[in-house]
């Protein structure tokens, strides 16, 4: 069971193993919703491989209460849009989103679903937010499973807070904040090497 914070009262009688707590109804409902996300994977492209990695035992997002995939949108709460959306698929995606019952959330998995990525051309939709509202963006090409779990936890956090503004998963290490990371050092070593200067 997860934590239920924001309780106003909790009573545990001395010598008893059970008690009761009082809280707001909305907080209790959000707590229940965030740990029972039924997901509908709308998998269109290569990010699907990473989706399989997240759903399989090593990373295993069922630990977060997002276990049951429902391949009918009418039974699902969370729409995972995994991969590139082309213009011809846009009406299908919108229809699936409209078939889902409220409350519903949308997670954009990968750069293509979030913004179109490098598919800036005649065929592709530059991000699913052009079609349907989106709650959490997980950038990456494909995103690492840790980033996806971060996105899922961010979504749960937003459900608990009742916050519908879109959120994005940032990298765990901000290169600006942590200038000693290997990536920054690599770039510095390259820019200081005489052979590569113009």
């Amino acid at each position, binding site marked *: 069971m997860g934590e239920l914070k924001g309780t106003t009262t909790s009573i545990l009688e001395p010598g008893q193993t059970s008690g009761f707590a009082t809280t707001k109804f909305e907080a209790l409902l959000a707590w229940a919703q965030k740990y029972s996300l039924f997901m509908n994977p709308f998998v269109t492209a290569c990010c699907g491989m990473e989706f399989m990695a997240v759903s399989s035992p090593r990373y295993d997002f069922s630990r977060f209460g997002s276990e049951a995939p429902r391949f009918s949108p009418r039974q699902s709460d969370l729409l995972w849009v995994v991969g590139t959306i082309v213009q011809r698929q846009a009406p299908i995606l919108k229809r699936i989103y409209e078939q889902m019952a409220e409350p519903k959330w949308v997670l954009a998995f990968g750069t293509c679903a979030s913004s179109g990525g490098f598919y800036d051309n005649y065929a592709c939709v530059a991000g699913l937010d052009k079609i349907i509202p989106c709650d959490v963006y997980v950038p990456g090409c494909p995103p690492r499973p840790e980033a996806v779990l971060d996105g899922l936890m961010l979504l749960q956090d937003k459900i608990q807070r009742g916050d519908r503004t879109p959120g994005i998963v*940032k990298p765990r290490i901000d290169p600006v904040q942590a200038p000693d990371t290997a990536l920054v050092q690599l770039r510095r070593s390259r820019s200081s090497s005489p052979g590569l200067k113009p």
Partner: protein
Amino acid sequence: MSQALIELVKKNFPDAVLASHSQLGDDTLVLKPESWKAVARFLKDDPQSDMSMLTDLTAVDFPDRDPRFEVVAHFYSLSLGHRLRLKARIGDRDGETVELDTLTDLWGSANWLERECYDMFGVKFLGHPDLRRILLYPEFEGYPLRKDYPAEKIQPLLQYRDEPGIEKVAPFGVDEGMSFGRQTHKYGIVAEEAEPTRPKIITPADN
């Protein structure tokens, strides 16, 4: 082997071949568009060539040439194991009349290949039984793989959401994001305490 194939076609169709070359095993014949289908039929039926398979058919757009388009077809013989490439140069400079005979009645695979070629380049294959777009939608105007199609031009099939600045919405607030933002929020209902703010709209003036 396939050099002999080029000679075979040249012998049987002396007027049809405009050019030919053979490099690193790639044997190519450039044909007059009128004899496109006759040569293809010959290559299929003749026992010395026996091209049983049409591997690929596509087009290339050369906007500076006068027959602007080049339709390219690749053939393979399953029994004899050799390949041949045929090309035909067609079309005027403005790309209005781009026509070539269909190969659908010779190879079934030509059906979808020619539809794709029509979809992307606007090459009209005369005699094709079902020439319509195969990958794009019927509402699409123009042919996207032509060089004069604007690279960034999109034609959405579904109307984009009616949201101000949907073209460029910053999808996150300032303190959003897992590793930095999560600790700053309190759990519980925040509706009374803090109004959820819309993300900042980036306008071209900001850039």
